[in-house]
């Protein structure tokens, strides 16, 4: 029993305020845009120089000068702005984004993130990940709570090459919502059917409690 990636994206979307400037990482985090609560409209930023783009175009209506960081076609909407790459990353590092939501291989209780390299084999590629973890007011990650063979991915220290040090502030995992506060994991929400002890055994560092733990409730999808 765990949340699907779609359900994690839904949960992450509930925390995005109306009018927030948001960058969504390539892959699953892109789904967050689909689940904005009614009455809220975030403004999405993509590294390659668009602010306020719309959803994917109809098949066959793509304009390949209008793509997102994942090289997927997007559309214009009223209020879209274009800019060059240095301005785009000024928005990132300069503290102008409200939220960045990224994928993660591992997160440490210190807030360290590993999400760009699984080790020395193959072709290394970093893209904008190392920039995005610095500057956004909130850096959140969406991730399975454990690996495919059940090993914790929330750890005391990351074992994989780091993307950034002390940068993650909230984790939307497949089992829980966990904040990182002063070098500790603080449990905010967990699946109701999961005991605190069971969740702790699947977590590689101590889960601290700071007030009541809410049930992690998401719609069926």
């Amino acid at each position, binding site marked *: 029993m765990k949340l699907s990636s779609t359900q994690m994206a839904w949960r992450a979307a509930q925390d995005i305020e109306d009018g927030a400037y948001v960058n969504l990482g390539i892959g699953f985090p892109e789904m967050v845009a689909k689940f904005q609560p009614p009455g809220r409209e975030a403004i999405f930023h993509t590294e390659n120089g668009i602010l306020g783009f719309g959803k994917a175009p109809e098949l066959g209506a793509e304009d390949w000068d209008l793509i997102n960081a994942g090289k997927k076609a997007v559309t214009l909407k009223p209020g879209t702005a274009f800019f060059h*790459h240095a301005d785009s990353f000024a928005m990132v*590092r300069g503290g102008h984004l409200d939220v960045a939501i990224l994928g993660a291989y591992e997160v440490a209780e210190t807030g360290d993130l590993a999400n760009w390299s699984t080790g020395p084999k193959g*072709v290394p*590629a970093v*893209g904008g990940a*190392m*920039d995005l973890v610095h500057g956004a007011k909130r850096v959140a990650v969406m991730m399975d709570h454990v690996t495919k063979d059940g090993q914790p991915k929330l750890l005391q220290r990351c074992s994989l*090459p780091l993307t950034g040090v002390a940068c993650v502030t909230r984790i939307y995992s497949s089992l829980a919502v966990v904040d990182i506060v002063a070098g500790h994991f603080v449990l905010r929400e967990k699946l109701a059917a999961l005991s605190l002890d069971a969740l702790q055994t699947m977590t590689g560092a101590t889960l601290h409690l700071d007030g009541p733990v809410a049930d992690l409730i998401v719609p069926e999808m």
Partner: protein
Amino acid sequence: MDKTLPNLAAAVAGIPDGATVMIGGFGGSGSPIELIHALIDRFLATGHPVGLTVVNNNAGNGHVGLAALIEAGMVTKMICSFPRSADPVVFTQMYMAGKLELELVPQGTLAERIRAGGAGIPAFYTPTSFGTDLAKGKPVEVFDGRSYVQERWLKADFALIKAHLGDPLGNLTYRMAARNFNPLMCMAAAVTIVQVSEIVPAGAIDPETVITPGIFVQGVVAVPNPAQEEDLNRAGAVYPEVTA
């Protein structure tokens, strides 16, 4: 003053062996495919240029454009942030075979290094990559209690750029997100060569809408209806075309 170049062959004629060449674009958007193919044509006819260091966000996709330049064996080093794509086979094989050096740079650091190169700023400090493998060997300083990594400017001998409109003075506009690295690379190269969809008379571009002022541009060549890398790849294109 007229920076108009007569054709693509003339536009790429001056690039020597061993040059550092910035190539604009992010994936296929803003990629000067026709200029790259003209450079490959020159190599096929003359054997030059070779030993190029290429600066681009990526490292090619499929077998056209930058991927074709690498596949032709003209490139010995890539400076990029993300050498993966839908079809990265050309870069991957050359890199894994040890025939191609890679300098991996975080995307925002790459953009700022290029901007700094064009702006006469030899080094700057950024929070990006602090505490990671990509900061190894680089000076670190603390400002207001936070650690920052020193990065150096990046300059080039040539830049190959794709813009939308250009005038004989080299003033440029771009089309949507095809802007990306192009305006920065215009500034950072000693010689900037631009392909534009249309060359318009001086004064036809509203000065309020000029994105790259002509001072950063040395040559402009008209390429009406430029190809899109994504369309070429979906059609299975290979450059140069394989003939029986």
